[in-house]
């Protein structure tokens, strides 16, 4: 046994060395009860955080039983419902998660809502350790007048809509106007812009839902502005996604050269990632395009652009008072530089005409259960290295631990970190294994009495097979089932 940096490998000695059968039944039943020495660990949430935490625990502890709970009947969280349909490679992590779910010491229990069907305190009674990995299901609000007008949606809901998240199924976004404004300049903002402007033939071959594909086919949106409060040096999107947008067939970029002149000097000494990202924007804005690109831009029927130093003040209503017709923006200037630059109003204002407003200013976690500490200002569960403050035996990983930013690798590292804390606490005795816990066994009957029927991983695999089969008929990787009842009926619930 050794605790080395980054990896705990903790093996029990052979059970035979600890429990010597005395020849009678009593001795053998003691042998069988070594199962009681297996840590019972519960994970709430089956997205990347939940699965990477489970993976690390199972790999580095030879006896741990890990149960993953999920409120939906289907697993994988944002990998299924957040990653854009035209980014299937990013979803390859589902393969490794599937392997984890199928392993002997792992069980998946879908269709169980923690905080409603069963409380965290009940989980703590059933398990030695409970890890909260339930992510960020809500979004930050703008807090400006007109935010609730028709035609205004959070990017989170729009992404949920085209990705088949059941709760966003009936969004019916209004795509009847020519111009859309996305507030925010992160990768989610680029995703929604790209899905709005992509050639239909591209979208048709993805796992975008049938319903949203039909709506986008009737869309009149030709122009998407991505509006940010700060400048080009503060954009939050990354270079691969920007490159994709610049090269999007049938579109041309609208970049104001005034925003980019002189930026070359400002980035001389910044780290390579920011430098290359800025150089790509500068090149697209200031350099004469090559022949092929010039031809593409000339024949483009759709366009997208970046507007900087504009902060939303109000969504303006149309004559009927119900529909969005534009956004009033405050012109800002920057104080400070780099990542910590602040946008300060100049007093000047502008109006930008549009019929569709998507706010893409961040996801937000919600408190789960009164017994779990939650910081509403930061939107996270207060913790130290994944150990929830003041609650021994309770841990957290992923966005609910750190905040809702980062790509899958960020969450992966973070989840390994939390798993590490659990493993350390198992080894040091902070988590007391002689305190027998029964895991799911002790919850089964109470869930049943509450009318809750968990969906197993092999149930999910039936839903998965049905989606893939339906998709095949349409030339898509899958046709997602967007109705909860339909999912449950398919598996005989």
């Amino acid at each position, binding site marked *: 046994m050794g605790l080395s940096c980054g990896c705990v490998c903790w093996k029990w000695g052979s059970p035979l060395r600890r429990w010597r059968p005395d020849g009678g039944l009593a001795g053998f039943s003691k042998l069988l009860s070594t199962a009681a020495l297996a840590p019972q660990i519960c994970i709430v949430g089956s997205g990347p955080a939940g699965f990477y935490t489970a*993976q690390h625990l199972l790999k580095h502890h030879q006896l741990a039983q890990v149960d993953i709970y999920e409120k939906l009947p289907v697993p994988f969280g944002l990998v299924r419902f957040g990653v854009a349909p035209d980014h299937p490679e990013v979803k*390859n992590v589902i393969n490794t998660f599937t392997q984890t779910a199928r392993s002997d010491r792992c069980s998946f229990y879908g269709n169980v809502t923690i905080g409603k069907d069963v409380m965290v305190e009940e989980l703590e009674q059933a398990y030695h350790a409970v890890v909260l990995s339930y992510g960020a299901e809500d979004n930050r609000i703008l807090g400006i007048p007109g935010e609730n007008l028709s035609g205004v949606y959070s990017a989170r809901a729009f992404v949920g809509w085209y990705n088949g998240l059941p709760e966003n199924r009936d969004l019916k976004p209004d795509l009847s106007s020519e111009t859309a404004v996305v507030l925010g300049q992160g990768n989610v903002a680029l995703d929604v812009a790209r899905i709005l402007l992509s050639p239909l033939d591209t979208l048709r071959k993805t796992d975008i839902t049938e319903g949203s594909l039909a709506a986008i086919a009737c869309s009149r949106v030709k122009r998407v502005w991505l509006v940010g409060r700060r400048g080009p040096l503060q954009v939050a999107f990354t270079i691969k996604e920007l490159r994709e947008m610049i090269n999007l067939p049938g579109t041309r970029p609208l970049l104001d050269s005034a925003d980019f002149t002189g930026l070359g000097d400002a980035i001389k000494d910044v780290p390579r990632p920011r430098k290359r990202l800025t150089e790509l924007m500068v090149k697209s804005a200031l350099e004469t395009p090559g022949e092929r690109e010039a031809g593409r831009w000339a024949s483009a029927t759709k366009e997208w652009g970046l507007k900087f130093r504009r902060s939303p003040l109000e969504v303006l209503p149309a004559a009927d008072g119900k529909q969005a017709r534009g956004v009033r923006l405050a012109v800002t200037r920057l104080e400070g530089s780099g990542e910590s630059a602040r946008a300060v109003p100049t007093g000047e204002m502008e109006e930008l005409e549009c019929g569709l407003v998507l706010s893409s200013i961040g996801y937000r976690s919600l408190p789960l259960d009164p017994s779990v500490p939650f910081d509403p200002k930061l939107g996270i569960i207060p913790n130290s290295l994944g150990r929830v403050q003041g609650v021994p035996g309770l841990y957290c990983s992923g966005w609910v631990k750190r905040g809702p930013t980062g790509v899958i690798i960020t969450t*992966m590292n973070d989840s390994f*970190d939390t798993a590490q804390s659990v493993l350390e606490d198992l080894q040091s005795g902070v988590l007391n294994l002689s305190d027998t816990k029964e895991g799911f066994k002790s919850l089964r009957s109470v869930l049943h009495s509450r009318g809750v029927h968990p969906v197993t991983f092999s149930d999910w695999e039936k839903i998965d097979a049905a989606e893939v089969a339906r998709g095949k008929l349409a030339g898509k990787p899958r046709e997602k089932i967007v109705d909860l009842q339909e999912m449950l009926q398919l598996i005989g619930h």
Partner: protein
Amino acid sequence: PPSSLPSPTVAPDRVTVHFINRDGETLTTTAKEGESLLEVVVNQNLSIDGFGACEGTLACSTCHLIFEENVFQKLDAITDEEMDMLDLAYGLTDTSRLGCQVCVKKAMDGLTVQVPMEVADLRKGLEVGKQSK
């Protein structure tokens, strides 16, 4: 006997590669010429946590490896697509590459690569550099 005789336990068409894992342990294995370093890790079932999440499709940076300077210089040129993903890797160095884009060659026999430390190992309260989704 001449010291240049190949080890009898390594087949002549296989290349020896050493991976220095995050915990300092060296994992030594052999690879077929033309295999990417990600394929080596997968095919040889090496115990490197979270390696190759996107399965070699340039959609993540989890196969990030650090090379020795002289070896790094001789690798095939890096593409923009690889650099775009490498830019998001933790602990990026001047001799970093993505393992899924580097293919083993005979001349690399005895190659040693370092698996970079994750954020998890920089635990003394260092603030994680923010990367937006």
